[in-house]
C-alpha cells in the first residue's frame, strides 16, 4: 500500500485511539488545526474533543498533565509541537516523568508517550532547527526512539504505548512527506534493536532519524567506487543497541556516525565512545563523526546546508577511513 510517513503516523494514532479507551492525544493544535504537520488531521472529527485535546501554549503544564494522567492509569500521547519548545517542559520530563518510578520506590508508573518533531532542513532558522535527541538519550528512565522509515512511523507508537514507562518519539520534520510502500497489515515494531538498512563490509555508517537517508545516499555514492558501506539505523536512541553497532563495526573495522546534533556533546560522541570501549582492538581507523557545525542554524539555504551533515560529507569521511588503512 502506498503511503507517507505522515499517514503512517496518523494510522498508528488512529489505531491506538480505537483500541484503548485510555489513550488520548493532547498538544498544541492537534485538533482543530489538524496538527502542525497535519499528522492528526481528521482525528478530532473521528474521536471528539475529549480525546483529541488542543492545549494552550503551556508546554510545561500540558506535559506535566500528561504525566499526571499517566500516573492515574491513562495512556496519554502528548505532542510537543517541536523539540525546540521542549526545553520549556524538560524539567517535567526529567524530574518527573523519568524519575517518579525510581523516586517512589517503584510505586508510581508514568506510561506516557511524548511525540515531537525535530531537526533542521527547512530554513526556519536558529530557534526552530534544534536536534536535541542526544539530550533525551542521556536521561535514565526514558526510552527514546526515532522512526526513520514508514514501518517505524507506523509501528513505534503501539510499542511505546505498551511500555509501562515514558517513551519519547522524535519525528524528523523533513520526513513527514516521505512516500513509499507499507504492508497493509503493518503493526507494532520492537523498541529495542537497531536495524541494518543496507549491508556492507568496508565501513559502517551509523545514523538515525533524519540522517538515515543521508547515510544511505552516501552508501549509494560509495558503491561505484568499490566501497561497500553498511548502514545502521539506530532506531532506538535509549537504550542504545550496542550489540548491533559493535557487531557491525567489528566486521567492517571502520565507522562513521552521522548526527544532526551539534558535534560537541552529540549522541554521535556517545556512539564513538561505545565503539572505543567495545571494539577498540577491532578498529582499523578512528571512528569519524559527521555532525552539525557548531553554529545556531542560519536561515539561508546555502548556509543551512553547510551547517548540517550532508551525504557528501558522510561519503568523504567514509572514503578517508577506508583509504587511511587496511
Amino acid at each position: 500500500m502506498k503511503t507517507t510517513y505522515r499517514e503512517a503516523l496518523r494510522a498508528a494514532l488512529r489505531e491506538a485511539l480505537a483500541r484503548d479507551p485510555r489513550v488520548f492525544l493532547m498538544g498544541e493544535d492537534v485538533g482543530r488545526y489538524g496538527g502542525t504537520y497535519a499528522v492528526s488531521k481528521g482525528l478530532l472529527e473521528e474521536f471528539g474533543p475529549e480525546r483529541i485535546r488542543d492545549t494552550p501554549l503551556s508546554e510545561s503544564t500540558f506535559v506535566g498533565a500528561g504525566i499526571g494522567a499517566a500516573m492515574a492509569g491513562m495512556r496519554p500521547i502528548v505532542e510537543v509541537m517541536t523539540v525546540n519548545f521542549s526545553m520549556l517542559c524538560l524539567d517535567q520530563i526529567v524530574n518527573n516523568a523519568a524519575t517518579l518510578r525510581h523516586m517512589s520506590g517503584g510505586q508510581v508508573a508514568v506510561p506516557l508517550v511524548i511525540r515531537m518533531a525535530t531537526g533542521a532542513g527547512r530554513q526556519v532558522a536558529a530557534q526552530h532547527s534544534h536536534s536535541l535527541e542526544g539530550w533525551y538519550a542521556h536521561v535514565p528512565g526514558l526510552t527514546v526512539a526515532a522512526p526513520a522509515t514508514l514501518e517505524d512511523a507506523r509501528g513505534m507508537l503501539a510499542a511505546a504505548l505498551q511500555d509501562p514507562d515514558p517513551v519519547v518519539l522524535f519525528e524528523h520534520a523533513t520526513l513527514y512527506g516521505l512516500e513509499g510502500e507499507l504492508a497493509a497489515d503493518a503493526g507494532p515494531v520492537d523498541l529495542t534493536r537497531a536495524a541494518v538498512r543496507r549491508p556492507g563490509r568496508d565501513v559502517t555508517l551509523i545514523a538515525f532519524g533524519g540522517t538515515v537517508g543521508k547515510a544511505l545516499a552516501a552508501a549509494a555514492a560509495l558503491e561505484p567506487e568499490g566501497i561497500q558501506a553498511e548502514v545502521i539505523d539506530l532506531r532506538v536512541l535509549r537504550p542504545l543497541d550496542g550489540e548491533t553497532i559493535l557487531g557491525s563495526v567489528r566486521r567492517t573495522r571502520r565507522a562513521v556516525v552521522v548526527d544532526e546534533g551539534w558535534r560537541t556533546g552529540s549522541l554521535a560522541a556517545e556512539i564513538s565512545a561505545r565503539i572505543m570501549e567495545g571494539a577498540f582492538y577491532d578498529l582499523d581507523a578512528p571512528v569519524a563523526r559527521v555532525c552539525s557545525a557548531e553554529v545556531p542554524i542560519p536561515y539561508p539555504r546555502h548556509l543551512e546546508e553547510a551547517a548540517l551533515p550532508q551525504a557528501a560529507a558522510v561519503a568523504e569521511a567514509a572514503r578517508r577511513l577506508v583509504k587511511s588503512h587496511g
Partner: protein
Amino acid sequence: MTGGGPAVSREHGLALLRQMIRVRAFEERCAELYGQGKIRGFLHLYIGEEAVAAGALQALGPEDAVVATYREHGHALVRGLSANAVMAEMFGKATGCSRGRGGSMHLFDAATRFYGGNAIVAGGLPIAVGLALADALRGQRRVSACFFGDGALAEGEFHESLNLAALWTLPVLFVCENNRYAMGTAIERHQAQLDLVLKARGYAVAAESVDGMEVLAVEAAARRAADHVRSGAGPFLLEARTYRFRAHSAYDPELYRAKEEVERWKQRDPVKGFTALLRDGGQLQPGDLERIEAEATAEIEAAVAFAEASPWEPVEDLLRDVQAAPGAAAGVTP
C-alpha cells in the same frame, strides 16, 4: 473563631488535635535525628503550619489524590501513611514509603494516592492537573489536591496550571500554604499582587483565603472548596495564611527575619491555640492531652525503632525501578 467555643464534636476535635500533635512530635524528633546524622540531605520542617494539612486533608476521601512539596511530612502522616514507613524513609531504609530512594522530600504512597513529595517548586501543579484530567476523562468524581508554597506563585507553572484547570473545568483543589516566605524572600518581595483571590480571578478560578493557624477554619474552608471542586464547578484556589516557625531547612541561618516576628507568630501556635480552644469548649478533658501526647510519642518512638532496625536496600539493587522490569505490566495504581 473567637468566643463561644468551636462547633466541633469532642471526637473530631480530638482527632484533629491528635493529628497536629503527632505531626509536631514527628518533626521535632526528626530535627534531633538530623542532628545525630540519622536523617541527612535536606530537612524542611512544617512546624507551625500543621493546621493546614490537618484541616485541609479532612475534606478529602480515600478516592481523592494528594500532591505535595518537599515540606510534606505532615501531609503524608495526616493522609494516612504510617509513621513507620515515613520515618524509615527519612532514614533511607528499604522499608521506607519510597523504599528509601526518596528521603524526606519524596514521600510516596500509592495506596493512599499520595503522589509525592515534589522538590521542584511548582513542579507538582501540572501533575495534579493531570490526575484531575484522568478523573474528568473517566467521569470519576474525585478531587486532586495540590499543596504548594507562596514561592510557587511566581513560577510559570502556577499560571499555566490554573489556566488549564480552569479552562477544562478540572477537579483540582489548589492549596497555597502562604507562610510569607520563599526561603529568605518575604512574599512582599516576590509577589506584586498579594491578594490571591484577585490572582485567581485572572483565571476565573474561585478562591478563598483562610487563617491557616486555625485548624477548624482551614477544615471548613477546605470542605467548601472541595465541595465546589467535586460538584464539577472546576478548580478552586484556597490560600491558607500560615507561618514557618523553624528555619527553611537545616542550612538556613535565618538572616532575613527578626526573632520578634517569629516570636509573635509563635503566639499563634496552631497546636497550642487549638488545645486551648478545645479546653475552653469542654471537648478536651483532663488527661486527654497527656494521653494524646503519650500516644504520639509512643508512635514516633516505635517508628524510630522500626527505622533503626530496618535494612538498607542492597547496593546490588541500585538500578532497580529505573524502568519496569522488561515485560512488566505498567503497575499502575489508578
